[in-house]
């Protein structure tokens, strides 16, 4: 994916000079690989949806940088994530595997998120601290506050990050959760993924402001807007928000601005409401390409490394697809399981 390659001799020097927000080189490559993996997964699920092998594609093209960087800014395995359906790259960064994802897309019995009860991309993992979400917009935001409240009550220094889109900010639940967290100084990070659309509704029909971080003002919490296609900008913002939260100073709203390159889902005929030229234009700012170019330019990523990553990613996606494709269907009667606990 790297366009222009740098000679190996220039690499070392560059590495010393460039500010990578304190992210060590190995981690930069890990972040990059996760972004590539997400992109490859997205590409695959669209193919599978178009061929009819799966019933629904949901993807996060354009969100890779912000999602992966925001997770890497936290203590993975320790902090909490409350995602929505758009967060597949973030979920991979947390530790979910392509197989986990594909089992959900294929609606297989083994789907660890929901036993194929839910739509795909409705992530859930107790071991990874990823709370199960619904399809309802914005309902997860108070859940994130509640998880963080519990951490705070137990005096743990864990933080919770909760994700939502630009459209979700219009819902009452966004507002109630933001206010609640600010009043009680809850260690939560509100990460708004502004991709300019809520299905067909453009941002200017969703709100009368341009900078979504202004929404923090009315709650008395810090708000910051960053380029959501810039790994470092997002990383820094989330790192700072996490530090604040751990210091007991309460929540932060981080707005990561990007663009939804794919249609909302494979059920969404986006030609009705947006100009294909707009998409073409936005593809130029693909965060994966941009990060790749950066890594190469500054000597963090060689052509060989990139090729190896591409190969690993492709193999993983293939393996996951094949595995899920041939995995068994759910048993009809199992739908009755787990109405109540005991």
């Amino acid at each position, binding site marked *: 994916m790297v366009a222009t390659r740098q000679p190996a001799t220039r690499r070392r020097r560059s590495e010393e000079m460039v500010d990578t927000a304190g992210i060590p080189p190995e981690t930069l490559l890990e972040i990059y690989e996760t972004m590539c993996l997400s992109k490859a997964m997205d590409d695959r699920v669209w193919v599978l949806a178009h061929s009819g092998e799966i*019933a*629904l594609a949901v993807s996060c093209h354009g969100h890779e940088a912000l999602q992966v960087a925001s997770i890497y800014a936290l203590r993975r395995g320790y902090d909490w994530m409350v995602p929505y359906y758009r967060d597949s790259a973030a979920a991979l960064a947390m530790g979910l595997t392509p197989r986990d994802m594909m089992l959900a897309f294929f*609606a*297989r019995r083994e789907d660890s998120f*929901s*036993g*194929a*009860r*839910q*739509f795909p991309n409705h992530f859930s993992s107790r071991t990874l601290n990823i709370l199960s979400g*619904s*399809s*309802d*917009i*914005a309902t997860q935001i108070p859940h994130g506050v509640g998880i963080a409240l519990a951490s705070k009550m137990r005096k743990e220094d864990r933080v919770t990050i909760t994700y939502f889109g630009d*459209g*979700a900010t*219009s*819902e*009452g*639940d966004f507002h109630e959760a933001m206010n609640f967290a600010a009043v009680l100084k809850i260690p939560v990070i509100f990460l708004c993924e502004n991709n300019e659309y*809520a*299905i*067909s*509704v453009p941002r200017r*029909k*969703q*709100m009368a402001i341009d900078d979504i971080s202004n929404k923090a003002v009315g709650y008395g919490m810090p708000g910051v807007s960053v380029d959501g296609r810039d790994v470092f900008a997002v990383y820094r913002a989330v790192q700072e928000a996490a530090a604040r939260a751990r210091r007991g100073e309460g929540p932060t709203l981080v707005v990561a601005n990007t663009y939804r390159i794919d249609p909302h889902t494979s*059920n*969404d005929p986006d030609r*009705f*409401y947006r100009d294909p030229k707009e998409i073409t234009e936005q593809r130029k700012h693909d965060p994966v390409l941009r990060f790749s170019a950066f890594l190469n330019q500054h000597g963090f990523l060689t052509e060989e490394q990139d090729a190896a990553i591409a190969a690993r990613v492709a193999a993983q996606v293939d393996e996951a697809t094949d595995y899920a494709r041939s995995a068994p*269907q*759910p*048993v*009809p*009667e*199992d*739908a*009755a399981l787990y*109405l109540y606990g005991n």
Partner: protein
Amino acid sequence: MPQKLVIEAINDALREEMRRDETVFCIGQDIGAGGGVFLVTQGLQNEFGPDRVIDSPLAESAIIGVSIGAAANGMRPVAEMQFFDYILPAMEQIANEAAKMRWRSFNTWGVPMVMRAPTGGGVTGGIYHSQSLEAMFTNIPGLKVVLPATPYDAKGLLKAAIRDPDPVLYLEHKKTYRSIRGEVPDGDYVVPIGKAEVKRTGNNLTIVTWGLMVHYALDAAAQLEQEGISIEVVDLRTLLPVDNETILESVKKTGKALVVYEANRTGGFGGEIASTIAEFAFEHLDGPVTRLASPDIPAMPWNHPQEAFFMLSPEKIAAAARKLAAY
């Protein structure tokens, strides 16, 4: 007579009512350029402009709350909830505001508005795009609730709902949108709210049902006819206020009643129907009033095998009817 799909009948009704009465307007998420996620409102924004086909922010309570205010001030809003599942944030506005406005103001204010929402399952909609939540709304006096099964009823009931002086929850079964075609006369007509219809006459047993299940019940009835069992199918069409008269008349004739509904069994609206029959047709009953509904699990699973497990079908209905008929 022209044949139309349910979705076309609804689109026609909206268009004709908006042409007829300029106080009628549509409001909802994605209903404009997008035409709604099911394309029910396709073409309306083109014809009537963005001020009468309003793409609202993503806020159900505001959509309903704003519509209430507009209705109180002389307009006739038709609000779309993108899925019935997502009407819940607006519950307070519907139950405590819209439904109570006239009564609480001693008839000073009225809220002539329609809330459209796609209900039901069977379209791989999974947990959150398949719910049949009508029982949450049928214990709310002041509200009207309709659920047409056919294109004819869909058009006529939507027109009636738009012209009604009170808030009407107009449910559209999303599976019927493009799977049910039927005769729809050109031009204006209304199907009165509050009137059930016998969709098929029979002597041995009455099936009372609504929505998609009307079609499944008719299929079941056709099967059972081969077996010599004659089924009457009552399509409620309006759930609130419910037409007990038509139901009771039918059951008094057949002596047996099977109430079929797609929602979860316990606490579903079928309980209302069955208990009305049990109380007021008691002396005419030749068998227990029987309910057939979806199992009491939280929702419709997304995967196909379990969706089929959850959903009723003509076969499941036929089996229940056969058993009751043999009682």
